[in-house]
Structures are given as C-alpha cells and as structure tokens.
C-alpha cells in the first residue's frame, strides 16, 4: 500500500526525499514534502544530510 503524509508522514518523507532532491516531484508532492520538512526536525536533519552528501559526491575529484 502506498504511504501517505497523513498516515505516516516521516516514512512518506523518507520515500520522497530522493525524488525531491532530484526535482522530480509534482508541485503538489513537493509542497507536501516541504510542509513536512518545515514541521519535522527529524526529517529536516536527514534532508540536510542527504543534500550535503549529494553535493559531496558531485564535487569534482
């Protein structure tokens, strides 16, 4: 069964975090993810880490 922000917001956030960083979510999905990230420090910390990791891997060796 698909996760939802209503039923299990942090699990849903984990599910959409990578596509969010890839800018592949729809406007509605992105708005939901951003709303949750604003409200939840647990997910926000993980989001910042994942974004930083992405920048790190991207950096030219």
């Amino acid at each position, binding site marked *: 069964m698909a996760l939802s922000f209503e039923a299990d917001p942090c699990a849903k956030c984990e599910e959409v975090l*990578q596509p969010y960083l890839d*800018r592949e979510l729809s406007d509605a999905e992105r708005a939901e993810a951003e709303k949750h990230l604003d409200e939840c420090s647990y997910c926000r*910390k993980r989001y*910042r*880490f*994942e974004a*930083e*990791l*992405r920048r790190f891997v991207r950096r030219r*060796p």
Partner: protein
Amino acid sequence: MSETTPEAEPRKLAEEARDRVRFEEEALALADQVYRVARRLVSTREEAEDLMQETYARAFRSWRSYQPGTNLRAWLLRILTNLNIDRGRRVQRSPDMQPLEEGDYFLYNKLEEAGETDEERVDRRLSQDDAVAALSEVPHDFRDVLVLVDIGDFSYADAAQILDIPIGTVMSRLHRGRRILKRELADRTVGSNV
C-alpha cells in the same frame, strides 16, 4: 536534368565546413561537464581521460548524426556511456542477486551511531578518495544512472533516453545504486566498529 549549378557544390562544402566547426566548438564547450561524468564512471583519471578522448573522437566522426537544436550534452553522454559499456568495464557479479537491507538513511544512521551527528559536515568524515572508491564499487548498471542523475544533473527522462532504458528502470537502479553507494561509503568511513 540536373539542377546543380557549378557554384552549388563549393557552397555546399563551405556550409558543411562551417556546420562542422560550430558543432566542434559547441561540443568542446561541454568538455568539462562530460569529463565530470567520465571521472565518476571509471576508477582512475587515466581511464577517464581515455574515455573522453574516445568519446570526442567518435562524436567528431559522427557529427552529422547529431540533430542541431537537440540536447548536445545528452548526445555526447550517450556516446560516453555506450563506449564505457563497450570497453568491457561491466563487473562480472550480478548486482540484483545481492541482498540489500540498508535503508535510505543507512549512512546517516551509521554516522550518528559513531557520534557524528552534524548533518552539514559530511566531508569531515569522508574524503574525495572515499567517494571515488565507493562509486567504483557500485555495479555499472547502477553507477551509469547514478552518475548521470547525481553528477550530470540529468532528469530521469533524460537519463532513460541516454541509456536507452525505461524510466522505471532508471528509478529502480537509482534507488538501489544510492543504497549501495551509502553502504560503501559507510564501510570506508565508519568501518565495522559500529
């Protein structure tokens, strides 16, 4: 009866030469971006430089098959990834056979367990050598997608087009490739002591 005038042939040749020069200039302007992808696809700088050389040699040979106005970077990277596959860099093991228990937050959790909770300080625990070594452990099918999306900044649709695979395959390989990469990074940074 032929319509060709005596002047038409030299004019055609001059136009073609101009088109070719324009193509080469545009392709070379993208060399930095193409190299960045090449550097992450293979393990060493020498291999990346070889791959670049072959890519541009093939691109310059086949320049007529490029359709002006379409995505030249994607066209060049399609050559690059195909050459990389042709060069037999695929690893022998079958990546789908490996069980993978780790979740998306695997590396975060490992660093947190090790007392590194500052999410903005990834590079305190990770070196660029770690990143190159960890990427080289990601099986090629997954790495090709990961490099195009994470480093080349391509959309899923563009990566699907470049690699000639369905978009669903791009998404599943990306998902799995990132988890493998995190496991490899965790092995290199935290080790087995947590």
